C-alpha cells in the first residue's frame, strides 16, 4: 500500500515561516535530509495523524546560508548538525552547534562531493 505524500516547493527564504506553520498546526518533525544533485536539494518532512508532508527547496552552493529551524523544533539541531558535517551546508544559528564535531569522518563533508562516473 503506497502512502500518499505531499511535496510543497518553497524558497529558502520561506523556510522558517512555513516550518512555524507546521508547528502551529500540530505536526511533528519527522526528518530533514539533503540530496546532492547539481545543487543541494533539501527535504523537511512532517507528519500529523499519518499525513506525510514535506517542504522542498534547493541551494546552489554549500556555502549558501540556510536558517536553522531548531528554534521552532528543538530536535532539528541533530539533523542540522548532520547536514553540516556530511554535506558541508551552512546552517545558521543552530541551538546546539557542534561546529563540525558531531560526526567523526575521515574526509571532510563526505556527502557534499559528487561521485564521478569513473569512481563507479
Amino acid at each position, binding site marked *: *500500500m*503506497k*502512502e500518499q*505524500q505531499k511535496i510543497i516547493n518553497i524558497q529558502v527564504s520561506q523556510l522558517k515561516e512555513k516550518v512555524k506553520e507546521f508547528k502551529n498546526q500540530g505536526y*511533528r*518533525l*519527522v*526528518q530533514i*535530509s539533503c*540530496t*546532492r*544533485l547539481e545543487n543541494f536539494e533539501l*527535504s523537511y*518532512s512532517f507528519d500529523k495523524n*499519518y499525513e*506525510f508532508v*514535506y517542504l522542498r527547496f534547493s541551494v546552489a552552493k554549500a556555502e549558501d546560508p540556510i536558517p536553522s529551524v531548531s528554534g521552532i*523544533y*528543538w*530536535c532539528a539541531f*541533530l539533523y542540522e548538525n548532520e547536514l553540516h*558535517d556530511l554535506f558541508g551546508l551552512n546552517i545558521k544559528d543552530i541551538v*546546539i552547534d*557542534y561546529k563540525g*564535531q*558531531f*560526526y*567523526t*569522518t575521515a574526509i571532510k563533508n*563526505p*556527502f557534499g562531493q559528487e*561521485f564521478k562516473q569513473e*569512481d*563507479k
Partner: protein
Amino acid sequence: MTKRTIIPFGPQHPVLPEPIHLDLVVEDELVVEAIPRIGFIHRGLEKLIEKRDFVDFVYVAERICGICSFIHGMTYCVGVEAVMGIEVPRRAQYLRTIWSELSRIHSHLLWLGLTADAFGFENLFMNSWRIREIVLDIIEETTGGRVIFGSAKIGGVRVDIAPEQIAAIVKKLNKLEKEIKDISNVFLKDPSVKHRLVGVGVLSKDDAYALGAVGPVLRASGVALDTRQLGYAAFDEIKVTPITDPRGDSYARCVVRIQEIFQSIDIIRQAKEKIRVGPIEVKVEGTPNGEYFARTEQPRGEVIYYIKGDGTKFLKRMRVRTPTFANVPALLKVLAGCQLADVPVLVLTIDPCISCTER
C-alpha cells in the same frame, strides 16, 4: 550555587554495547544537562548507494543493523517498490509481516535482558536471552540466518515458509508466550525492578511528541502512533492497535515493550490464519525513477528510507532516518534532572541502536 562538573559518559561504558558519548553536566549527583555526541563509527552506507546496483543494495541495507536487520532490508524494498510501482504478491507481504514481528519479539527480549543487566538482575537477564534464543531458532529454521536473514528482496521475498512450518511456529510461540508471561511478571511486579523504573525519567506526552520521539518511547508517553497503521506489508488486513501507557516513565516503556511482544505473537497468529497460497515474488524490470519516503515500524520505532532514483541502476540518494536518531532528543530531555545513578538505565530505556544510527 553548587559546583558544576562535567562527567563524560561513553563512548565506552559497561551498559553501552556500541559507542555513544554524553557529556553529563552534574551538580553533586543531579544531572542538569546532557550533551550527546555520535559519529564515532559512522559508516557512510548512504553514500554507497551511488556505487552499488539498487537490487544488490538490499544486502547492505540489511547490514545497517544486527538486530532489526530484516526490517531495514524490507523498508528499503518498500521504498524502491513504491518508486517503481511494483505490486508485491500477498503471500510475500504476509511473510514479511511474520519476519518483522519475529524481529520485534527478539529485539524486545534483547532489550529486556539488557535492562535487567543494567540494574543488576543477572538471572532475569539470562532468562530473557534464553527465551530470545528460541525466537532466533525459528528465524534460522525459516531463513537460514539468525541475525541477517537475507530473505527480503525487491518484488517479494527469497524464501517461502511452508504452511505446516507456520503452524509449528505458532505452536512454539504459544509455548513461548507462557514463559514470557513468567518473566514479565518479574519485570512488572518485582519491587526491586519497580524501584529502578517507576517514576524514573518521566517524559510527558507533549514533550515526547514535540521532540519527535518514536516507537515505544513515544507510545509509553501516551501517544498512539504506530507506523503499522499505514498498512504496509500485510498490516492492511491485520489488526494492530497501538499499545500506549500514559505514565511516560521508564516503567511505562518497559510495560509497552512487554505488551508489544504479546501483540507480535498475536499478529503472527492472525497472519497464519489469513496468509494465502500464491507466488512469493514478482520479476523486477526497469530501474527506479522518482522518489519516495518509505516508513515502517521497527522495534525501536518509525524508520524512514528515502529513495530517489533517476532511471539508472544507481540511486541518486538513499537516506535512512533511524528510530534511535529520532529518540536522542527525548533521551536528553529525561536525562536533565535525573540522578547520576539512573543514567545507564535511562539510556537503555530508549533502546539505543548506535549501529543503525551510524549507518
